[in-house]
């Protein structure tokens, strides 16, 4: 890595999988038509059924693995990229998940509690590590480059993007798959419920004064990152450039300060000022606490511009997708930069004096942003922020 020139990194493929969308075009239509909200797990399952069958040798995959493999397939298809079937060391994979394999762990533990330790199910056991899902995708698509899995809660997706960005920028490989996924399971939902984090109405109202909690959802989102030269040489369409990523922690203190530090690092690395930002793809989910942290953090990093720059909240339509939130937001930001359209925030109506962002409500509008910020923070004590730029046509 040391001494190598920094490569420009672009996003050339977007593969979302949620209860509402199972392709880039469906995701974009969802935001244009302004209809969504957290969907049911069965809706995601239906999408999975309609996607090209996963190879027979991966029937042992758990649903997290199927989510990841499906999202990766969608992103590769969108990027018109096919890894060398014999094994491709020029492509790596970075995976982020908030709660990952906990469902498989629960299933395995239930089994040995019922039948005894000697009768554990080995097929389930192989899915009890978070990187199993990335391993399936790697094996299915012949991806043999750098690999990493992060389980940093709600920031895991952007952390995977940060890892992938560095692999390309430093010249280790020209192409990385970034994928993030989380699935819902009863104990997880119970845990959120026990901590009163879920909206009783089930309607996520990010940054709105009336917000009363998050609405959990599940899903996966994959992005294809490539060096700009590689993408250009193969004639790929670049949706946006990843300019920089910042990352900080809260040390047990103030999450808003951590976000501010991450944003400041991202702006500094990108060589831009706060006022250069023209769009924010917020991580607000409707949580009383987290939304306020984000507002305070952006205000600390961006100053007065935090209340002026147009902001949109993807989680108002997608729900809280946990570790996938950052990659969904980055994918949407890339589509917005590419198309010039800025997607709306659903269910937004009453401004909160504690959350003074300039929220884009009601419907998509033409904005033609050149630079967008994608922040992420959560309860893990970690905060990240990515800066994306419109690619020159």
């Amino acid at each position, binding site marked *: 890595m040391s001494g190598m020139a920094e490569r420009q990194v672009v996003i050339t493929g977007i593969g979302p999988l949620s209860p509402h969308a199972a392709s880039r075009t469906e995701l974009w239509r969802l935001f244009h038509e302004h209809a969504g909200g957290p969907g049911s797990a069965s809706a995601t399952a239906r999408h999975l059924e309609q996607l090209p069958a996963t190879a027979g040798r991966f029937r042992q995959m758990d649903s997290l693995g199927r989510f990841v493999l499906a999202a990766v397939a969608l992103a590769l298809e969108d990027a018109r990229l096919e890894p060398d079937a014999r094994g491709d060391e020029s492509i790596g994979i970075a995976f982020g998940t908030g709660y990952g394999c906990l469902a498989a762990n629960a299933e395995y533990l239930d089994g040995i509690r019922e039948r005894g330790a000697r009768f554990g199910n080995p097929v389930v056991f192989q899915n009890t590590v978070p990187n199993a899902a990335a391993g399936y995708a790697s094996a299915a698509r012949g991806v043999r480059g750098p690999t990493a899995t992060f389980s940093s809660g709600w920031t895991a997706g952007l952390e995977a993007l940060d890892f992938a960005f*560095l692999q390309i920028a430093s010249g280790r490989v020209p192409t990385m798959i970034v994928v993030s996924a989380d699935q819902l399971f009863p104990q997880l939902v119970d845990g959120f419920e026990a901590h009163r984090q879920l909206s009783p109405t089930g309607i996520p109202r990010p940054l709105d004064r009336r917000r009363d909690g998050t609405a959990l959802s599940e899903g996966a989102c994959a992005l294809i990152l490539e060096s700009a030269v590689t993408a250009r040489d193969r004639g790929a369409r670049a949706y946006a450039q990843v300019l920089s990523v910042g990352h900080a922690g809260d040390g047990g203190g103030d999450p808003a300060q951590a976000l501010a530090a991450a944003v400041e690092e991202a702006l500094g690395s990108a060589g831009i000022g706060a006022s250069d930002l023209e769009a924010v793809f917020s991580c607000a989910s409707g949580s009383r606490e987290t939304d306020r942290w984000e507002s305070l953090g952006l205000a600390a990093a961006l100053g007065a511009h935090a209340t002026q720059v147009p902001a949109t909240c993807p989680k108002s339509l997608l729900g809280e997708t946990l570790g996938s939130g950052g990659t969904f937001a980055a994918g949407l930001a890339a589509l917005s930069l590419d198309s010039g359209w800025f997607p709306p925030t659903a269910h937004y109506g009453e401004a909160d004096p504690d959350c003074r962002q300039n929220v884009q409500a009601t419907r998509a509008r033409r904005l033609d942003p050149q630079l967008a910020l994608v922040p992420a923070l959560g309860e893990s004590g970690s905060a990240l922020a990515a800066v994306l730029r419109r690619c020159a046509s």
Partner: protein
Amino acid sequence: MSTARVVVTGIGVVTANAGSASAYAEALRAGHSGIRDLTLFEPGFPFRKAGQVDLPEPAAGAPHVDRVSRLALMAAEQAVADAGLEPGGPILARAGVCAGTSRGPAASLERLLDPALASGRGLMREVPFYSIARNVARRFGMSGPSSTVTMACVSSSLALGHAMDAIRRGRVTVMLAGGADGLTSLSFSGFSVLRAMTRDTCRPFDRRRDGMVLGEGAGLMVLEELEHARARGAHVYAELLGWGSAGDAHHATSPHPEGRGLAAALNAALRDARTAPEQIDHANLHGTGTPANDPAECHAIRQVFGDHCARLPVNSLKPMIGHTLGAAGVLELAGSLLAMQGGFIPPTLNSQERDPRCDLDVVTGAAREVPVRTLVSTKSAFGGANVAIVARRP
């Protein structure tokens, strides 16, 4: 991209055979194994040996902190003290933490899911994998980047590489990096039903080998930008020159039979370190003692090092500490760095009858007193993940 150099200035370890870095170095030189009968839980299998750590009971009434976080906190406190850093001081306040784990807070998850225990819901904040890094960062008030790597048995190796990159790219000057894993009934059962566990003893590279023995522990290292370390007069154990990771793209649990991904990770690490294979004096291997791992690993070593294998002593530390899963990478690199500082290579216990498919110069019997200037440590994992790290004596 910055060209900062990264050095190790503090080491903290908690293993079955040692409770500190100095004790660990002595145990590795003496070939002292910490493998014994498991008492932490009833495993439910005739073979019940493991590398269990004697962990003090938490104080009565203390908030619940999972066993794996307690292991990590013990190692972190040692590393911070060893590096001469002041808890709550300005250097740690800006530092980051990167923790790797395979099973995470599995003991808390087991309690959370146990219908016989009513305390379940209160454990939810302790159950996520990120709780280890969060607990360490909170203990020392660290506001640098906080990361959690979950890549089975390469978790802490990748955590070290990721932390190294955070310093090299100029994001921070100090990182606390490594990992932890605790023994749990889930992993004991799971590896047993996969037939990955020995019924006798762990014998890496031996033709009689029949599996691994589990262990637990934690290792944290203070990684520091070289000039920063020099400026404050810190002791430097080693410089981390480079690292690499690569996937097998082969199978969920079995390594590629020719160690394809491991060879790629080794080549990537050597490239990153700007080091030729001939410059490596010693390779600390994964050496689990399973029938599948050891020959695949040796095949990769032969492929990368060729004729240099004749001058490349290799070893496995697992017969002494057990397979500590996500902590294996940092604990075995830490052991190798301590040994490099002491001028020896630790032995591979129980390895007596060489498997012809593992025809490398395996250090067996007793520690080999030999100067090592540059070494590589390799680890492999479920999901076909492989990581290699190259380090050099200062």
